[in-house]
């Protein structure tokens, strides 16, 4: 987690959870991890999805939940995934 955040522990935990749900919803291909699956923090899979999100939205691809990435994650949006489903 520290590698993913620069925020305070509480904020970072909330943001991490928010990001995890978002990435599961919109960046998990069919047959991917089911919701509620425990993913080790900072695992390859999460970092990979963060990079995919950052690339799709034209953000700097860092693999980290930086400010601009979290801002994008918090925007109201369509429920259809951004990756092929």
């Amino acid at each position, binding site marked *: 987690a520290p590698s993913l955040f620069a925020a305070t522990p509480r904020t970072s935990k909330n943001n991490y959870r928010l990001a995890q749900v978002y990435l599961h919803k*919109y960046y998990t291909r069919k047959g991917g991890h089911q919701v509620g699956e425990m993913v080790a923090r900072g695992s390859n899979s999460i970092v990979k999805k963060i990079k995919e999100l950052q690339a799709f939205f*034209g953000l700097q691809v860092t693999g980290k939940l930086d400010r601009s990435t979290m801002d994008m994650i918090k*925007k*109201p949006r*369509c*429920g*259809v995934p*951004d990756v092929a489903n």
Partner: protein
Amino acid sequence: YRLFPGEPKWKKNTLTYRIAKYTPSMTSADVDKAIEMALQAWSSAVPLNFVKINSGVADIMISFETGDHGDSYPFDGPRGTLAHAFAPGEGLGGDTHFDNAEKWTMGTNGFNLFTVAAHEFGHALGLAHSADPSALMYPTYKYRHPYGFHLPKDDVKGIQALYGPRKMFPGKPTVPNVPPHNPTIPDLCDSSSSFDAVTTLGKELLLFKDRIFWRRQVHLMAGIRPSTITSSFPQLMSNVDAAYEVAERGTAYFFKGPHYWITRGFQMQGPPRTIYDFGFPRYVQRIDAAVYLKDAQKTLFFVGDEYYSYDERKMKMEKDYPKNTEEEFSGVNGQIDAAVELNGYIYFFSGPKTYKYDIEKEDVVSVLKSGSWIGC
């Protein structure tokens, strides 16, 4: 733009839709309107028509849902996920769900339903998310003003990659409902043009062409002036197919594709309805011309080289129709673009000619230039 894997698309060009569940945060009429305009945003760019049904299973079932609503994509309460739609296909395919936990609106004090619906119908027609921030199919919400909405280029390219551009109808040119900022006034004085629709409205005569209509006194040539259709009939935007007035009722009817609007004068009376209210067979998807015959209290609808007769008193289509136009109206040639009855004559507009048909004599008594009606 992006398409879904396998590029699913609809194999027919008339799709039905049904709003199965509404939301308490908007009136049903406003929901109907927003949905109608959101679909029209797409049908102006591709040869697809949308017909609203109020019962049974439609191709595109639309509903406002809360939380887990049975499609394994539960909603998440206010904000976050606003709506989703399924790619074209049987059953769930095309269906579109809106999160009832959101505050839906026709304006900006909440999430604008037209904006979100137009995006979701892009999915229902086969578009995935676009990475172009200016595209309607960009995943995050950005308010779009419904009136005068122009489908962004990226979305036009994407949807036309699936369905091709909206074709021009022979004799009745239709262009995407993307009104230019300053529509040019079509030159009716050149010999090839005709009108899209002609009707009386009170003491005036209205003649429609593309995005423009001319108003004039019925019996006077003076004071003819062109206006944009959107200035008086925002919902109609452009390319009216047919129009007629039942003067004794003070109501007029305007037709476009499979829909029609009722007005009192220039006041629209509610959202668009489907032409199937009149009893047309389902294969009829648009009307070429319509004319109300005062004495007979019947309305004639012209479709291709045939016509139907609708009894306005009984409010039902007459039996033994359609009939062939040229067989019934001797001397009138070609497809009818528009028609209007004045003082016992029916004026049939067909291309650059107008046939003056004497109802008593049942024959054409003269042929005029269509452009002469607006002073050419």
